[in-house]
């Protein structure tokens, strides 16, 4: 019988939540790496028992942990992320040049074909790759060499490369997003990159439709439609039908189009989920009501999903990497909150239950569907 394993990164450790295919009764393991921030954990699609975790603190820096037994035991692997060549500068908050400085790994993206290969998105924004299961990391320096790096500016959370999607149709095509530089695409496995921000409008930058400077919060893609991308931007939910060459807004009837998380149903490429957040300064749901919104039409038309979610006095946030879907026949949807809840819906969002209520603030949620 199929089962699922939910990998949860929090401000004070990681947790692994496991259930059979019914997804009603859950086992909770953790905390792993207690006291450390775990920005992200993700398993290899090739070898699901191989899981990588990004573990860090302000005190002791960055570690990468690897498990080869589904998260039962862990081994620290390489943690040196050295920028290629002379790192140069990006813009600081006050507009002055600031040296590129490694802070942490935000996102780990294991290869779709090789269990030893993983991409890592880091702060200050850069993309690294390991081909030896995490022992050593090397920058894919073409990204910062696009010529625009010196003008990139950090968002409130830092200058972070937080989203990595490898196209399932062509593994040489990679999409990434940086706050607050925008989205980028490589068609040659990360050697060279181009900005893909045409159609984005942001009031918070001097030229609203500039090619760069947009605070892209997250991207999502369905494997069967590799050219269709969905984006939750700082404000606006966007869609591209041409692999990011151009974007159009699909916020439609959302109560607010600010938010962080976005994901796509496992079997319905036009079914998209977002969690609207009140505004850029009010990082909680409108009216204290936690609601996922689902569009079955690829955007524009959205319906609130509230059954089982708190509908009063709820002032949590859902961060960019804290939503995921499983691939069981009836798609499960999961998200974690800064209040420490992890909610699961085994019916595509129609109803929700909290797997756990009181974890540390949730930074990321990933799901593995196991045979």
């Amino acid at each position, binding site marked *: 019988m199929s089962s699922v394993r939910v990998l949860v990164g929090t401000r004070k450790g990681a947790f692994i939540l496991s259930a059979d295919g019914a997804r009603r009764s859950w086992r909770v393991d953790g905390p792993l790496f207690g006291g*450390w921030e775990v920005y992200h954990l993700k398993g290899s699609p090739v070898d699901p028992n191989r899981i990588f975790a990004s573990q860090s603190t*302000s*005190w*002791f*820096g960055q*570690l990468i942990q690897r498990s080869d037994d589904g998260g039962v035991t862990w081994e*620290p692997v390489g943690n*040196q992320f*050295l920028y290629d060549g002379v790192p140069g500068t990006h813009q600081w908050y006050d507009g002055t040049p600031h040296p590129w400085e490694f802070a942490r790994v935000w996102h780990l993206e294991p290869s779709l074909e090789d269990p030893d290969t993983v991409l890592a998105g880091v702060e200050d924004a850069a993309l690294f790759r390991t081909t030896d299961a995490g022992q050593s990391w090397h920058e894919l320096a073409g990204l910062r060499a696009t010529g625009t790096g010196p003008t990139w500016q950090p968002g409130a959370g830092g200058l972070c490369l937080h989203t990595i999607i490898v196209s399932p149709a062509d593994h040489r095509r990679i999409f990434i997003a940086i706050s607050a530089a925008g989205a980028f695409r490589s068609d040659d496995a990360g050697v060279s990159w181009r900005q893909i921000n045409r159609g984005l409008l942001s009031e918070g930058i001097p030229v609203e439709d500039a090619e760069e400077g947009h605070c892209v919060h997250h991207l999502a893609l369905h494997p069967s439609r590799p050219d269709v991308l969905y984006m939750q931007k700082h404000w606006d939910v966007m869609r591209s039908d041409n692999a990011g060459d151009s974007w159009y807004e699909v916020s439609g009837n959302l109560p607010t189009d600010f938010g962080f998380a976005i994901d796509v149903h496992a079997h319905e490429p036009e079914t998209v989920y977002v969690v609207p957040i009140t505004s850029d300064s009010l990082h909680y749901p409108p009216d204290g009501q936690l609601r996922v919104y689902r569009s079955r039409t690829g955007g524009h038309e959205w319906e609130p999903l509230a059954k089982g979610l708190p509908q009063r006095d709820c002032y949590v946030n859902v961060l960019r990497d804290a939503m995921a879907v499983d691939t069981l026949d009836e798609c499960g949807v999961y998200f974690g909150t800064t209040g420490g809840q992890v909610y699961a819906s085994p019916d595509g969002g129609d109803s929700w239950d909290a797997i756990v209520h009181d974890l540390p603030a949730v930074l990321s949620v990933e799901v593995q569907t196991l045979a």
Partner: protein
Amino acid sequence: MIRVVLPAHLKKLANVSGEVSLEVPSPLTQASLLDALEARYPMLLGTIRDPTTRRRRAYVRFFACESDLSHDPPDTALPRPVELGLEPFVVVGAMAGG
């Protein structure tokens, strides 16, 4: 043998309990002690000092003989009682919220 006390998180990472005992080649300095510590416990690389600049991480402190040695140059000789194994070299996670 040189005695080293690690903070709880780093003890767990290095799979040790209690103090660590190290052979450190002369001269005994912060730098030579940390070189020996990282050679014996490579999983600690980057957790106490930056792997590139080899500077102490901002929220790490070094104490010995009731003195704060954190701001001493890395090549400064450590106190004689540390060299004799009478006092430990203490690595501390700085007091800061969170």
